[in-house]
Every structure is written in C-alpha cells, then in structure tokens.
C-alpha cells in the first residue's frame, strides 16, 4: 500500500536527518513568500467531452522555491477540488475535521494527483445524477478561507457536448 510505503519513507527520513530544515525554513521564511512559492494548478486531458465520458483531472502543486515550504491549512484535508463550486462534485458535505494542519513541500517539490469526474453530481447521500451538456468549471483550492486572496487556487473549464 502506497500510504504505508510513504509513512515508512517519512519515518526513516525523520530518523536519519540531522537538522529539520523544513522547520528551520518555515521559521525564517516570510509568510507572504510562502504563499507565493506554491503554485496550484488544475488541468484536464481534453477540453470537450462526450456525455458520460470520464473527465481526467490532474491536480498539481509545485513549490517554486529551492527551500522547503509548509503551508498552514484549515484542515488535514489539505486541498479540495470542485465542479461549479461543489466540492468533489457533491452537494453532500463531507465530515472533515476543521483543525489546522500543514501541507509540506520539500524544495522544488511537485506533487501531482489525479481525480476522475464521471459527469455525475452527488445530490444526496445515496444519489448521483448525470449532468447535462454544457460548460463546467473545475477548480482546485487549498483548504484555507483566504485561499482565493492568496492565489492558492486554480480553475479550468470544460465543455460537454452532445
């Protein structure tokens, strides 16, 4: 399981390193610079889709600076994606604790994640509805109330055509 592998990697890394440069860098890097360092991006494999065709979404976070960066988030769910403003294409709110956490990047790190949108909206706990053809805005944002003001969001549009 990748999560175990990553936890393990983190553990060994944490065990052998001599100085916590991430913490040091966090302590000395000005806040404004920290936000500006992180580049948030969202893209799709195509512009136009047939109805029912899955939309491949690629979410990228990139640390532009050659120093480790940590960004405080309002939740351990560091980021979320939306379709027309609906989180994870769902009208049903998900229980995610709203305690602060930190999204960490090593120097010049690029994190890339994939999501799929099957052109369905979750309308209730147990129901999803296919969307109609039209234009949709896919966006990604760090989980911060001031994400838009800090530039920690990105969006793209796609078109579903019959």
């Amino acid at each position, binding site marked *: 399981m990748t999560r175990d592998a990553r936890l393990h990697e983190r*553990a060994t890394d*944490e*065990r052998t390193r*001599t*100085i*916590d440069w991430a*913490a040091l860098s966090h302590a000395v890097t000005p806040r404004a610079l920290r936000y500006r360092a992180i580049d948030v991006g969202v893209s799709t494999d195509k512009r136009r889709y047939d109805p029912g065709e899955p939309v491949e979404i690629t979410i990228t976070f990139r640390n532009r600076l050659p120093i480790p960066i940590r960004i405080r988030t309002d939740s351990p769910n560091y980021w979320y994606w939306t379709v027309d403003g609906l989180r994870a294409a769902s009208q049903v709110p998900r229980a995610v604790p709203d305690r602060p956490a930190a999204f960490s990047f090593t120097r010049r790190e690029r994190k890339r994640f994939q999501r799929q949108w099957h052109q369905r909206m979750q309308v209730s706990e147990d129901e999803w509805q296919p969307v109609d053809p039209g234009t949709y805005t896919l966006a990604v944002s760090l989980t911060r109330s001031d994400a838009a003001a800090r530039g920690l969001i990105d969006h793209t549009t796609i078109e579903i055509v019959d």
Partner: protein
Amino acid sequence: MSLGRYVGRRLAVTVPVLFGVTALTFSFVHLLPGDAVDAIVGFRAVSPATEAATRAEYHLDQPVWDQYLLWLRDAITLEFGESPVTGRDVSATIGRRLPATLALGGAAWLLALAIGIPAGIVAAVRAGEPADEVGRLAALAGIATPNFWLGLILLFVFSVRLGWFRVLPPDAPLVSLATAKFLVLPTITLGTASAALVMRLLRSSMRRELDATYVTAARAKGLPERTVILKHVLRNAVLPVVTVAGLQLAFLVDGAVVVEGIFSWPGMGRLLVQSVLQRDYPVIQAIVLVIGIAIVLANLLVDIVYAILDPRIRY
C-alpha cells in the same frame, strides 16, 4: 546454551586478548630504536654499574621470551619497579592516581547517562516537536565540540569570570565537599560528548522500537503509556546503548587525559602525559597496561550484561 556457558565461551576469547595486551605493552620499550636500557633510563649517560643493575632489574640479559614471562610475572604482582625519572615506586604512583581518575570518569559516566537517557526518551517520544529539535541540535553540537575547548570555556566563564569553582586545595581528600565541588566542571566537560552520543543512539533506537507491533500489543493489553514506554520500549531500545558502553569507557579515558590536564586534576591521564613528556617509559608501560586490561574486562562485562538483557543472544 545457558548464560553460564555463554560467559565461559566469552572468557575463552578474552584470555588470548589479555595476553596480547600484555605482550604489546611489554614490547613497547623494545620497539624503541636503540637499546632498551637507554629507553628505560631515559636516554641518559649512566655508569656501567647502573646499566648492569637496570639490565638485571628488567631481565634484559635474558632471551626476549623469558623477559616477557618475567615481566608478566612482575606485572601480575603489580611490581613495576621504580621510575627512573622520579625515582618513585610506579605501582604506588598509579595506586594514588587511579582513584582520582575513577572518581572523575565515574562522575562523567553517570552524568552522561543521567542526561543522555532521559533526553533520548523525550526526543523519541516527542519526535518532530520543538523539544526533539532542540535536543538533536544540542547533541550534534555536543559531539562536535572538542572537550578541551569546552573545558577552557567553562574554566574561563565559571572560574575566572564568576569565580565559582576555584582551584582545588592540594591536600583535599578525594571524598570531600571541596573535591566534589571542584569536580563539577571537569565532569561536565568530560560527560558532555558522551551524553550527546547516548542521547542520539537512544533516540534512534527508540524511534525504531516504537514502530514495533509489540508496542501496539502492549497498549492493547491496557498497560499505561508510562509502562509501555519505560518497560517495553526502553528495555529493547537500550540494548544498542549497552553495546557502546565499552567504547564509551575508552572514550572517557581519552577525554580524561585531556580534561585532567586542563583542570590540573591529579589522575592517570595527567600522569600519562607527564610521563610521555619526560620519556618515563616504565610509568607509560604500566599506565597503558592498566588501561588496556581495564577496557578488555569492561568489554567482557558489557557482553555479559548484554546477554542478560537480551535473551536472544545466548542462542
């Protein structure tokens, strides 16, 4: 295999090493260029009568093998003769200096454990938190600081500037408040690096053990967290620290040589340096022999303690 048989086998390996240590120490004067007599009397011009007497005393007129056996016999009975430089009895001199070094070394060792073990535990349990970061940086600094420099700084700050620890009255008995107070600075100087090593080692081995399933199992049994850490995790994590105990002793002896000089502490280390500067070979020989044997025996003891602590080792 029982613990007794393990100890027996371990002893069997130790005996040849002990012989090797004595042989190396013995060959010491013979490795010097020129005649061994010259070395023993300190490269002075001496009368033929004295030379003959020295030859007889150190059995230099006999084959090397016999010389070694005779020397060994003398060494076992602690007969190292007189120092040609000071004229004092070597055994008596060492006998006077040894307690001072043991007191300093013992105090530093205790300090190293008293700081290193709790610091290591805290750093491991609070890994990544500020306490851990500070501890880790301090440990790194502790390892990199030359003890003679640290000694000088402490001496300057606390003795010269603050005047807290003044010079030791020369006639103060070893067990006295004055001596204990005087020993504070040398002990800190000597113990710092050891404490740092112990802390680093314990931290990393505790981190490893904390991930083990038996820790979760111990929690699942309903043991209090204290018991889980101090009884289950620590007992396993301390094993690598025990293996360094022998090396720590060697490390402390090395440190004592320097630290005793800085603080004018009348121990074996200072005696060794003085003897080397004066080319007082019989004394050097005796000191090196005592240290070598002490460390061999200490390593034997460490192995036995390790076997008691880790039941897997006996099989």
